[in-house]
C-alpha cells in the first residue's frame, strides 16, 4: 500500500448540506462507506453561505463536496469522484461493462423515480396523476430488477452483503418515499406487488452507517409539506 498516513492522503474534505436532502445523504453514505473523515456544514436554505454560492455558482445548491479547496457539485458526479480518489471499498464495479450497467440504472432511477417523485410532490390533480402513473411504471421496472438480482445471499445491488452505486443512488426511497407519499397524498409503495424492493429497503435501512443518517419521518413530513404548499401556492397565484 502507499506510504504516508491516511490523513495526509485524504486532505481536507468538507461537505455542504441540508439535513432534509436525500442527495446530501447519498454523498455522506459514499464518504462513510469509504471511511473518509469529513467536516459537515449545515447550510441554511433561506440564507445560503458565501462559501456555498461561490462553490456552486451554477446551481447554488447542495450537496457540494470541497476537497482541498476544490468544489464539486451534483451528487452522482461527487460519488464517482469519491470512488476514483479513494480506491478502498469500491462503490462502482471494476469491470467496464458492469460499470456501464450500474451507471445506466443510476440514470434510470434519477430520471424515472427521483424526478417523477419530486414532480408528484410539487403538483396536484391531473398533472400529479400523470406523474404518479409514470412513477408506478418505473417501480415495476425496479421491482423486476430487484427480483432478478437479489436473493437471500445477495441483499444489495452492489452484490453480496455490500452496498454499491445503485444502492446508494436508490437509497433515498427507503426513508423519503413514504414521507413524500404522505405529503403529496398519493400511493406508489406497495409491499404486495413490490416484495423484493421492500426487502431491499428494509435491509438498506439497517446498514450500520446508513441507519443513523435517516432523519425522523415527522420532521421530514413537516418540511416537505411546507415545500409542497409553497410551490402550489405559487402556481395558484399565477
Amino acid at each position: 500500500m502507499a506510504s504516508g498516513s491516511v490523513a495526509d492522503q485524504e486532505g481536507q474534505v468538507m461537505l455542504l448540506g441540508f439535513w432534509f436532502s436525500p442527495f446530501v445523504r447519498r454523498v455522506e453514505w459514499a464518504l462513510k462507506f469509504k471511511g473518509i473523515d469529513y467536516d459537515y456544514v449545515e447550510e441554511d436554505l433561506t440564507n445560503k453561505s458565501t462559501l456555498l454560492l461561490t462553490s456552486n455558482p451554477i446551481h447554488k445548491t447542495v450537496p457540494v463536496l470541497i476537497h482541498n479547496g476544490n468544489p464539486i457539485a451534483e451528487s452522482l458526479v461527487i460519488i464517482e469522484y469519491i470512488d476514483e480518489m479513494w480506491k478502498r471499498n469500491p462503490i462502482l464495479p471494476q469491470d467496464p461493462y458492469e460499470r456501464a450497467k450500474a451507471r445506466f440504472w443510476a440514470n434510470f432511477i434519477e430520471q424515472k423515480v427521483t424526478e417523477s417523485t419530486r414532480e408528484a410532490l410539487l403538483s396536484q390533480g391531473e398533472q400529479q396523476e400523470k406523474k404518479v402513473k409514470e412513477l408506478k411504471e418505473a417501480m415495476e421496472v425496479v421491482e423486476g430488477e430487484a427480483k432478478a438480482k437479489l436473493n437471500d445471499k445477495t441483499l444489495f445491488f452492489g452484490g453480496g452483503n455490500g452496498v454499491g452505486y445503485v444502492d446508494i443512488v436508490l437509497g433515498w426511497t427507503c426513508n423519503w418515499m413514504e414521507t413524500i407519499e404522505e405529503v403529496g397524498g398519493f400511493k406508489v409503495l406497495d409491499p404486495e406487488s413490490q416484495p423484493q424492493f421492500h426487502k431491499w429497503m428494509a435491509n438498506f435501512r439497517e446498514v450500520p452507517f446508513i441507519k443513523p443518517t435517516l432523519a425522523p419521518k415527522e420532521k421530514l413530513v413537516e418540511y416537505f409539506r411546507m415545500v409542497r404548499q409553497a410551490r402550489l401556492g405559487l402556481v395558484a397565484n399565477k
Partner: protein
Amino acid sequence: MAEEEVKLFGTWASPVSRRIEVALKLKGVQYEYIEEDLTNKSPALLNYNPVNKQIPVLVHNGKPVAESLVIIEYIDETWKHNPILPADPYERAMARFWAKYIDEKFWPAAMKIVVAKGEEQKGEIDEIQQQMKNLEGELKEKKFFGGESLGFLDIAANIIIWLVVAQEALGMDQILNEEKLPVLYGWLQRLLDDAVIKECVPPKDRHLDLCKVKFGSSIASK
C-alpha cells in the same frame, strides 16, 4: 487480438446517436451501424434496450450498453488509447458536471426555444444565453473543452450544433453569435471544422428539412 464485434443502433438525425459515432471514430474502433426507424423499432433494439426502448445502443460482443454518456464512458474505459475523459479525477468530475448540465438544463431549454413564441420564447432565449455564458466560463482559453483535442464535454455539447441548425431552419436570429458569445462561437467554428465531427453530423439539407417539418408547424399555425 481477439475478434471484436461492435454494433451501434442509432438514427441519422439524433445528436445522442451521433455522439457515439464521434467517440468510436476518435478511438478508431470498427463498428457496424444499424439505422433504426423509431416508428417501427426493430426486435433487436427492443431486445437490447427493453427498459427505455431508445437509441443509441452500443452492442459490444453481444453485450448492450444504453444511454449516450454511459456509452461514451464505456468506450473510453474499454479502448484506452486516445482518452476522451481527462486523467485527473477532479477534471473528470468537471467534465461530467458540465455534460450533465448540457443534458439536463441546456437541452430541455433548447427544445423549448424551437416551440415557444413571443414573451415565453424571449425568456427561453435569455436562459440559453446565460447557460452558454456559463459554458464559456468552463472553456476559457482552450481550443476545445478537452484541451487540444475533442473531449467528453465537446462530444456532449454537439447538441449545440442541432440548436444552430434548428434556428437556421426557422429563420431565427442565431443565439450563438460572435458578438454576444465570442468564446463559444469560436469553439463552435472549430468543432464544425473538425474532421471527425464533420463525419458525425446529419447532411445539412436533410437536417434543415427535418427541422422545418418538426418545428415549422408551430410557427405556421400562428
